[in-house]
């Protein structure tokens, strides 16, 4: 009974100080020796492969590109003069502030929620799966998601599908009149004749920029002499382009076909739409019910030309940084979730039950008992993520196209570029690496201090 209570109170303060061993003069020395036995393998490896390179880098950063001339702090001044580095720094700060907290929060929510569901292992596997994928694959996956072309990009395809459901594209998206004289674009997206025509006249309007596969199968050779009654305006809407070349603009050439489905309207002088019609298989349209004395302008309405949703540019300013962050969060949330879940599982149920018996609501149990008990684990996750985010470079390298690299740049990537990205300037690369290291140290010290004095 008392052991349980002691254990419970111990675990309520997870950052327990290590027990004091019996104080004997020789005790301290013996402890050091014992400690060394435990530490030697780690310290040896770290020293040779991690610490020595740091000193090497610091030294290397003081030399120029080929490595034989001492240049002192010149590489460091170059860092500060370079606009690219400033952008990289700004972006890195954004990453550090936003991403680790978001990932940890999501991981926490998932860890807690999955406890309530029977199929938690399945869910955990799904969320964790991205961690099993190499960064190259993850980059390709998200390229497919963010691709600008709605034919190939997942998000844009979805958006285009939704927008087409609401209002589909016109029959001839992207088309335009074949001759510029006498016809002008309207603000809504159609084309209207500049001159007016009195009923009884024939007005033929030719369009170009319609690829052959968009011409309906039912299209017939364009009508050449359409007659209009006294209260009608009629004519042909046709594709004014001869396949294989050789046609004349503005003239209905023998092989040119009409454009069924094109919508036409008659516009009165005051701007109102008086009649509407659709072109038939040979392009013929007839606008009826017109007043013989008035002169009307003929308009190809915008319904004919409306284009489908063209796709957002996810991988360019300003969306590229959030887009990359989302990909990163998708990959790492599983890590946070698994680590927090194992911490959560280590919390004895009795504590939670005790709180519930005392009348606490689920939310209060969560806030007052669960989270504080989890805090060492949360700190581990948060700190790991902060460090990892500072080092992120491969995701940005693979996901972001070259045209947006300058905007999405981060310090670790800048360092990679300097050292290996063609310039092979290890002096500058090393300087950037040292710079990164120096930037991070204060944050590390602060975190560890806070963590040591008890969470």
């Amino acid at each position, binding site marked *: 009974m008392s052991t349980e209570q002691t254990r419970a109170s111990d675990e309520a303060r997870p950052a327990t100080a290590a027990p004091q061993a019996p104080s004997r003069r020789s005790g301290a020395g013996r402890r050091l020796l014992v400690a060394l036995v435990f530490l030697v393998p780690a310290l040896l490896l770290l020293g040779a492969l991690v610490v020595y390179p740091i000193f090497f880098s610091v030294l290397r950063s003081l030399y120029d590109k080929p490595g034989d001339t001492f240049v002192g702090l010149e590489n460091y001044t170059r860092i500060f003069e370079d606009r690219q580095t400033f952008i990289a720094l700004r972006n890195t700060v954004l990453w550090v502030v936003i991403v680790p907290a978001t990932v940890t929060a999501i991981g926490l929510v998932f860890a807690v929620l999955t406890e309530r569901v029977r199929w938690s292992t399945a869910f955990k596997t799904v969320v964790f799966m991205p961690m099993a994928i190499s960064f190259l694959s993850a980059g390709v996956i998200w390229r497919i998601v963010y691709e600008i072309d709605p034919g190939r990009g997942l998000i844009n395809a979805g958006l285009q599908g939704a927008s087409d459901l609401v209002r589909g594209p016109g029959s001839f998206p992207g088309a335009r009149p074949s001759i510029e004289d006498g016809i002008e674009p309207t603000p809504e997206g159609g084309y209207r004749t500049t001159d007016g025509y009195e009923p009884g006249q024939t007005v033929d309007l030719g369009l170009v*920029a319609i690829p052959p596969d968009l011409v309906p199968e039912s299209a017939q050779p364009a009508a050449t002499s359409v007659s209009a009654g006294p209260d009608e305006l009629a004519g042909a809407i046709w594709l004014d382009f001869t396949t294989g070349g050789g046609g004349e603009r503005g003239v209905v050439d023998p092989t040119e076909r009409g454009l069924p489905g094109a919508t036409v309207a008659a516009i009165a002088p005051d701007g109102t739409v008086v009649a509407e019609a659709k072109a038939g298989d040979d392009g013929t349209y007839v606008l009826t019910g017109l007043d013989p004395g008035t002169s009307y302008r003929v308009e190809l309405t915008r319904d004919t030309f409306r284009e489908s949703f063209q796709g957002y540019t996810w991988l*360019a300013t300003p969306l590229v940084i959030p887009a990359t962050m989302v990909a990163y969060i998708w990959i790492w949330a599983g890590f946070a979730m698994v680590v927090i879940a194992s911490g959560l599982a280590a919390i004895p149920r009795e504590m939670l039950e005790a709180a519930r018996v005392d009348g606490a609501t689920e939310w209060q149990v969560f806030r007052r008992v669960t989270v504080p008990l989890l805090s060492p684990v949360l700190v581990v996750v948060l700190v790991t993520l902060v460090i990892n985010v500072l080092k992120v470079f491969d995701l940005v390298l693979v996901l972001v196209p*070259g*045209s947006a690299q*300058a905007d999405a740049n981060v310090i670790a990537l800048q360092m990679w570029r300097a050292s290996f*990205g063609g310039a092979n300037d290890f002096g500058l690369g090393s300087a950037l690496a040292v710079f990164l290291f120096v930037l991070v140290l204060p944050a590390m010290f602060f975190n560890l201090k806070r963590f040591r004095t008890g969470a």
Partner: protein
Amino acid sequence: MLMQGTMRWIRAFALVATLALIAAACGNGDDGTDTPEAPDVDLTGQSIEVAGVWAEGTGELQRINDVLDAFADLTGASVSFTSTGDDIAAVLGPRVEGGDPPDVAFLPQPGLLRDFAAQDALIPLDETATATIEANFASTWSDLASVDGTLYGVWFKLSNKSTFWYNSNALGDAGVTPPTTWDELVAGMATLSDFGVAPHAVDGASGWVLSDWFENVYLRVAGPEMYDQLTNHEIPWTDPTVITALERMAEVMQGDLLAGGTDGTLQSEFPNSVTLAFADPPQAGMVYEGDFVGGVIGTETDAVVGEDADFVDFPSIDGSPTSVVVSGDAAVLMRDSEAGQALINYLATAEAAEVWASQGGFTSANTGVDTSVYPDDITRRSAEALVGAGDAAKFDMSDLQPAEFGSTAGQGIWGLLQEFVRTGDVQGTAEALEDAASRAFG
């Protein structure tokens, strides 16, 4: 490091002397006037490692192995090839530091060759190889593989980067004849636009395609000598010839002439631009890049080169003569070995080039190569244009310049030309290019 370098020089000199003696003794191509034959040297028992960027996926791995096998058969040496992938600098750098470089490496940029030479990572070529190279290649090629007068490599495989590819069906339907002059190109683009297909597709995402565009236009606007001057920053980027070249480019880089518009182009990577032009139905009528476009068409699309796809030489501007922008891979020696030197010598012979040339996807500047070995008309025309251009064959400018200006994503010539596509601002771009160049060239 210095000691090692000196030792290397001494050993290299000794090797050269020895080989020269052997060559003299065997009477092998000693007068240098006829094309030196394949090495007669017996290298049985020696094994060397060769590194290059070629990978399995393109079939190029098989072809370089064929070349190396031919060498092995001739000499009895055993040769293995290591594929480094595109990041050859990242892979070779540490190996050089680790004291374990390959014997021979194929470097894709002259700048990389210079960097390695500066680090004493390259062995100068011996007399035999040098003689073979001088006999078979125009002097540009030895110049491009030399540093301070010492020859380090041979340009084994080249790419003609002045091939303008088009979709034959699209152009046929639109009634456009493949353009040979700039004016024809602009007119053809207008017609294609009327036909309903985007006139051309450009990879605006990476930047190197845009720099190749600029280089081709500039070479035709200003000529080979000024091209060299601009490459070495002896004239500024605000020079009137640069302005003219940029203005020309602006004529064809307008949003409504590009597949996907300006935004789409800036997101479009190179393979995508080829796919757009050769999709069914086509999303673009033409796409410009080098002779390797043929290979991409074969693997990434269902179109057939020769039937649905063909190329013309990059259009001339104001009557400019046939000019070619070139890129390539140079074989260099990274470890002294007799077999390594012999391999380089072999690679400089027409015979070695023909092993790969006959299989396609390969162009050689070797004047000894009989162009009838090229497997199809397309490859042959591309090779003939390259060899025929003589002094008007210029190496890709951005590969010759400091990497931070010439070949880094998002900055320098790549980044600034991307901005140019976005804004169309000729003067502003020229000034920004001059700024960037001044900083890079120091």
